[in-house]
């Protein structure tokens, strides 16, 4: 199961890779990273249909924002689940994200336990879908 994480802060990659080291090692899932909205769209367009099943995107990015990315992903690949991560837990962003079809809305600093749960559930669902 491939998960794509989109954030303009590149250190996010190290953080996620270490956080989910066990899961990655066990082959339960693989992580991909994109550092802008455009990069994420390019990455998704590489395979048809995309291998990615879940996208975590930061909202606050220069250029294309996470919300714009969310809209575009939902337009093109409605099957992919997208959750948003924001530094600001304000209701305006939250509502916009949910209205645009976001699955979850995380506020920074990310609660990794919650995120792990979310991903485990996803993996379980993914597995059952496959079976």
């Amino acid at each position, binding site marked *: 199961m491939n998960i794509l994480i989109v954030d303009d*802060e590149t*250190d996010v990659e*190290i*953080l996620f890779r*270490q*956080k989910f080291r066990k899961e990655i090692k066990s082959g339960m899932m693989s992580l991909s990273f994109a550092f802008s909205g455009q990069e994420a769209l390019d990455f998704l367009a590489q395979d048809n249909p995309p291998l990615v099943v879940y996208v975590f995107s930061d909202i*606050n990015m*220069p*250029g*294309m*924002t996470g919300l*714009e990315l969310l809209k575009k992903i939902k337009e093109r690949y409605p099957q992919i689940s997208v959750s948003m991560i924001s*530094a*600001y837990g*304000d209701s*305006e*962003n939250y509502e916009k994200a949910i209205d645009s079809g976001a699955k979850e809305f995380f506020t*920074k*600093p*990310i609660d*990794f336990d919650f995120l792990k749960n979310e991903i485990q559930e996803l993996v379980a669902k993914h597995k059952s879908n496959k079976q």
Partner: protein
Amino acid sequence: MLSVTIISIILLYSLKRPFASITVSEEWKRLFNYGLWVAVGLIVLEWMPLPGFLDILVYLAKYLLVGAIVFVTLTFPELEHKKGMIYAWLPIIGISIITDIFSNLTPEFYKNWESYFKTGEAFAFIWAIAMWIINAKQKKNLERERIKSLEKEKELEITEELKKQLEKQVAARTAELLSQKNELETTLKELKSTQTQLIHAEKMASLGELTAGIAHEIQNPLNFVNNFSELSNELLEEMKEEIESGNYNIAKEIAEDISENLKKINHHGNRADSIVKGMLQHSRVNSGEKILTDLNALADEFMRLSYHGLRAKDKSFNADFKLELDPELPQVEVVSQDFGRLILNLVNNAFYAVHEKKLKLDKEAGGTSDFHPLVKITSTHLGDKIQIHVIDNGGGIPKSIIEKVFQPFFTTKPTGAGTGLGLSLSYDIVKAHGGEFTVESTEGEGTVFKIVLPMKGVR
């Protein structure tokens, strides 16, 4: 023959009268009046039949009176102007007295020589008339002189009056000018303090705009610090487990990860630190001290602060930014907080411009246009100069106002959205560093603000 007493009366009377412009004092007039009374008394006594010795006394009194008049007039300087008259009368007085004496004492002798006496009398009269004519002429001259001097005096008075008026006017004007000067000085002082306040207010306003950006810029590294430290803790637990299970290779790998994480913690800690320091520097009252500054780092820092500040303030705002910085750019001695402000001003303006254009185009497209708002900072090392461009692809500046953008208080932003001081202060900052600050803009295409700094002071 005239009586000596009558002559006395004539003399006293004319002594009282003014000669041309000259008049005698009241005291003299009183004295002359007494003399007149005495003379009138003597005339009365002359007509009265008196015993011999009294008659002689009256005679003596007559001569004394006329003598006294002559003596007084010739002696006192106050009567100087009447001397001419006395000289005119003197022969007549003399002849009268001699005739008097001779006709009374030796009538025989007088009768024999009467013709001579008469001739003397005639000469005395001719003398008196000549003197009178001379006196009259003198009087006329004096009168003319007097009129002249009066005129002069009048002129002098007029001149004096004019002078006084002029002096008054000059004094009034001087006072007016002085008060105006004082007023101007006060105004200048007020203006100077207002300017300082305005500059400070502008600085604080841009700091206020920065707050959200700063919060974001600090929050981000802090999140990393927290995340990486938590993660390292977890990794340490894992490492312990692996060591206990004897998997030393895995433990070693984990240790390497932890070491990398600690580096990251350090890196992000420093990032937050430099932002706080930058903010403190920005808010400090300008010391004007030039310090060696990495303009690339400054550009990067303030670009981010501006971007995140605007993002935090307006959720609808978004734009892309790029930094094309010359890695060979030498450090320059500048007032770094001023330069930070300069970059912040330019970048804020640029973001504002691209955002406005985006809003306009989105509205026209009735949704989302494909306009890609972009703000770019480039730095270039050009021999003995450093060039910094702040480029945006916003709506551009109309030709009609491009000359005005550096003027204080000129703003196209709606009231309350801009002080109109940003570019004017930026201009002052560049000029204070001996640089050139220009703007090029194409309407509808975008704007480039160009800063060229001389390299003097570069180490």
